[in-house]
């Protein structure tokens, strides 16, 4: 698949170097982004609204030109070789992108024609795409009558027509209810397994990034903050917490100090018979903590260990909580989708 070109590494499907995008000479949407994504994985770009997720995706899908820096898909420059790049990518924009006044089947048929799929394969491919998104039974219904989740699946089906190497999904489940979100994702995972398509998606839903992605990049205010698997990210902030319920007696100050002395322990606080211990890594620290308490003859009634959520990760790296930022704009998009459907 990969083609040699200049000195760009072709191992990575997506390669981004020092990407900067400034809107109207003042808004820095992207502020020097570097990124590389291997083929065949599901990649999540996680960040709050306005972090630059959509801007990055639109540059990668050749819609916008970067102010400076470079981006490559399969080693092809998205600015200089835009037409080539467009032949191997699928894209589902954040906004609704089907015609509501015709049927689902007609939508795909028209896109198939626009995409230049030969007439003899067209019908078959359209049906395949519809079936693979679980829409076979609704093909002849006007899109106006579809639910939000069905529209999304239709849009993904549309992008599937081209059997792209990489699929860009901009907020694929925004404004959908949990069961519709799940349905959309199940279908995405199925076609990913079937065709080995690389999936690049933007989201501000931490749970989705957590559940469905192989690798996550956290973006905030136009900068890549951190990259890794969900596990790695949670691990990296060293914010695991051990809660111990002590049975008969509470731990004295000397015990607390002993615990604090452990190299794996960051912080210890006691509240009556409950100990809260912040550690870097639960698995490594827990045995040492238990050892200290046993030596002191303090019985342990219960143990709870909590791992950080991606929100904690985000908080640690970006300095603000993702949930706190995901506010009114989301609702706007949701109501907009609703209006479009009605209109």
């Amino acid at each position, binding site marked *: 698949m990969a083609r040699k070109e200049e000195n760009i590494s072709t191992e990575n499907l997506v390669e981004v170097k020092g990407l900067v995008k400034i809107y109207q000479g003042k808004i820095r949407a992207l502020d020097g982004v570097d990124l590389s994504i291997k083929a065949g994985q599901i990649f999540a770009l996680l960040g709050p609204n306005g972090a630059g997720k959509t801007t990055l995706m*639109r540059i990668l*899908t*050749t*819609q*916008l030109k970067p102010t400076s820096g470079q981006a490559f898909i399969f080693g092809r420059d998205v600015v200089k070789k835009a*037409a080539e790049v*467009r*032949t191997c*990518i699928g*894209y*589902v*924009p*954040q*906004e*609704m*992108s*089907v*015609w509501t*006044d*015709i049927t689902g089947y*007609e939508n795909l*048929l*028209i*896109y198939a*024609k*626009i*995409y*230049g799929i030969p007439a003899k394969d067209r019908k078959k491919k359209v049906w395949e795409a519809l079936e693979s998104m679980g829409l076979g039974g609704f093909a002849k219904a*006007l899109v106006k009558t579809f639910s939000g989740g069905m529209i999304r699946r239709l*849009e993904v089906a*549309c992008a599937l027509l*081209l059997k792209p190497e990489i699929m860009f999904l901009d907020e694929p489940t925004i404004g959908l209810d949990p069961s519709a979100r799940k349905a959309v994702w199940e279908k995405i995972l199925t076609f990913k397994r079937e065709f080995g398509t690389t999936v690049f998606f933007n989201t501000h839903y931490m749970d989705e990034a957590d559940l469905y992605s192989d690798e996550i990049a956290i973006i905030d205010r136009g900068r890549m903050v951190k990259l890794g698997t969900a596990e790695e990210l949670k691990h990296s902030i060293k914010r695991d917490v051990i809660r111990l319920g002590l049975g008969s007696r509470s731990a004295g100050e000397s015990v607390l100090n002993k615990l604090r002395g452990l190299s794996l322990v960051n912080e210890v606080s006691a509240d009556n018979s409950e100990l809260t211990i912040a550690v870097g890594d639960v698995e490594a620290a827990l045995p040492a903590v238990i050892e200290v308490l046993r030596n002191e003859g303090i019985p342990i009634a219960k143990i709870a260990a909590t791992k950080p959520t991606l929100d904690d990760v985000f908080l640690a790296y970006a300095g603000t909580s993702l949930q706190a930022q995901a506010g009114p704009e989301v609702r706007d998009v949701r109501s907009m989708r609703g209006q*479009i459907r009605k209109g």
Partner: protein
Amino acid sequence: MAMMELELRRLRHDRTEIYTRAIQPILWLVVYGTIMSSIRAIPTGGIPYLDFITPGVLLQSTVFVSVFYGLTIVWERDTGILKKLLVAPVPRYATVVGKTIASGVRALFQALIIAPVALILGVKFVPNPLNFLGALVILFLVSGGFAAISILVASFMKTRERFMGIGQAIIMPLFFGSSALYPVKMMPPLLQHLVVLNPLTYAVDAVRGLIISGDVSHLPVDAAAIVAFDILMFVAASMSFRKIIE
């Protein structure tokens, strides 16, 4: 071609728009046309006034459709459809051409509704189907050019409200500043010069020659002017189209 099919399929599902859009031009013919022809205030060179304005009204209504086709584009911009089209592996000019052809198709349907009305009102067409076909070709070409203008405008006016304003500001002056309602000779001298630059003037002249007067001596010049206008607008629209999503 796909774009054209899209319009046809849309029309099949919902024809209301075509009927409501036909009301205005029919009023021009039925009310304005009949009244003005009864007072015979405008020298039309021996043609009944109603017959005189029929080509103009036909063109006005098709151009109306094309210019407001840009509204569809603004709507497609608000949704993600345009983004998706621009990411599709087809050249951008192809998308522009496709869109303009689609608008031409819509415009033709409009003409096919108005023509019978004119017939009922007693307008005498040149009884040659080839001429009528030629007129449809002219209508199609003109509406394509105006659809391109519409795309051009839509690329800059990214909201519906702004677009509506500009749309009106384009159509009415062009309609009144052409020979659609009165001969060019009746206009003030300054306007007579400007009329030369108005593509509608040529279109009206061509269509009138083909279906009303039967005098096709200007046809080559008219057709050349329209084609030149089309090409100019296509190029401009293709260049501006990229900007529309930024």
